[in-house]
């Protein structure tokens, strides 16, 4: 079976800074995959390269077998990305935002699915409210909704719970777990390691643009019996 995401020898420099130093990994279909590492490890650079927001200096990235540069239209159609930054278009309401995002993916009538996403993310009451009037947590939910409007089989969540209250986190993870159970591949970056420990069946640890550990969560934990993922994370990065 073709990998959900295939990353081979990806290198990216920003001037003299090497952000990615030959990163390779395969993520299988249906996985809940964690991409962890300290700030500046290269996680967001890797995700941006996968999403076509950055062009790597070398290497290849594929989404379900489609190269993100040579076959970008198919690759982007299969990928939904929740960006890390809290960004929004201040001219539109929540529903307008989601209709517009659907249209970008070639979907004209998407209100049934939009209503379902809004309900699952507890946004129904805010559907006709302008984006400017939403709280930070609400805007974060809309970003998640935008990534899901075209029902992508591969979903990347780049720190989706940063600055989000406990109630939303639980609701969000419940929804994402359901999507994963339905067959969607989930790639998660987060600084909340207890979330990664609870959700991800495989984890890659990155440091200074390199993958320093890549294994099933239970195997990583087994290397340091009795330790939490946070302790495993710190010890692995120290090595």
């Amino acid at each position: 079976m073709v990998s959900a995401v295939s990353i081979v020898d990806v290198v990216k420099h920003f001037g003299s800074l090497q952000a990615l130093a030959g990163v390779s990994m395969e993520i299988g279909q249906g996985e809940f995959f964690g991409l962890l590492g300290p700030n500046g490890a290269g996680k967001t650079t890797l995700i941006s390269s996968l999403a076509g927001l950055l062009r790597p200096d070398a290497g290849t990235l594929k989404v379900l077998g489609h190269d993100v540069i040579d076959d970008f239209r198919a690759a982007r159609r299969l990928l939904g990305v929740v960006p890390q930054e809290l960004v929004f278009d201040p001219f539109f309401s929540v529903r307008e935002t989601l209709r517009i995002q659907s249209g970008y993916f070639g979907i004209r009538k998407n209100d049934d699915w939009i209503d379902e996403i809004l309900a699952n993310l507890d946004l129904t009451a805010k559907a006709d409210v302008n984006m400017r009037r939403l709280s930070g947590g609400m805007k974060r939910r809309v970003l998640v909704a935008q990534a899901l409007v075209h029902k992508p089989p591969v979903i990347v969540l780049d720190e989706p719970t940063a600055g989000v209250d406990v109630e939303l986190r639980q609701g969000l993870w419940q929804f994402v777990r359901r999507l994963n159970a339905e067959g969607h591949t989930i790639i998660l970056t987060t600084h909340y390691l207890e979330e990664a420990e609870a959700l991800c069946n495989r984890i890659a640890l990155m440091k200074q643009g390199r993958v320093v550990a890549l294994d099933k969560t239970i195997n990583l934990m087994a290397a340091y019996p009795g330790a939490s993922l946070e302790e495993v994370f710190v010890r692995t990065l120290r090595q």
Partner: protein
Amino acid sequence: MTGFLTLFGKEFLRFWKVSFQTIAAPVLTALLYLLIFGHVLDDHVQVHGVRYTSFLVPGLVMMQILQNAFANSSSSLIQAKITGSIVFVLLPPIPYSVFFAAYVLAALARGLLVGLGVLAATVWFADLRVVAPLWVLVFALFGGALFAALGMIAGIWSEKFDHLAGFQNFLIMPLTMLSGVFYSIYTLPAFWQDLSHYNPVFYMIDGFRYGFFGVSDVAPEVSLTVVFACFAAVSVLTLSLLKRGWKLRG
């Protein structure tokens, strides 16, 4: 096609939702130009046998079409880049040619709406006739589209609002103000007349004005050739920047 229609619709709504600022304000500015210059000069100046106020109106209409087409695409892109919301159009599978077409046509739509507004507000003060409406339409479309594409380049190139203001104040404003909106270039000294022929905006204004009065400084066929060549060159440059993802995709 849905991607194009959505992006065009989004760009159209973006200026329509703030039409007091994006349409009414430039119409008022043009009206003030007409009232001030017309009041001072109408009894003293005729150009190509046309009263000054009548001569001025087509120039003001075209100037506002150009400036507002430029302002729409450039401000939309710089705002999206600075706020980060540009990711919403970079993540989907929108081909760069569709991206170009949607931004240019939405900016052209704003330019034309402002142009119609200026015409509707100023026509009461001038004795206007349209002897060649097709020339009026062709110059409005290609001139507006050229400035919309130029606005895309400015929006892509600019990294902060300061850069865009520089582009607007030190390139677009001088080009439009010194293009013959307020005068015929044949009233200028020889040096400035010659220099005006290197300003592509002069041909847009002159050709557009020909459609109203049937007289111009340069034959409209020559003006159209210049305008079309500039439009083609700027479009090719814009498309190549979008294809490379220059300053959009790192």
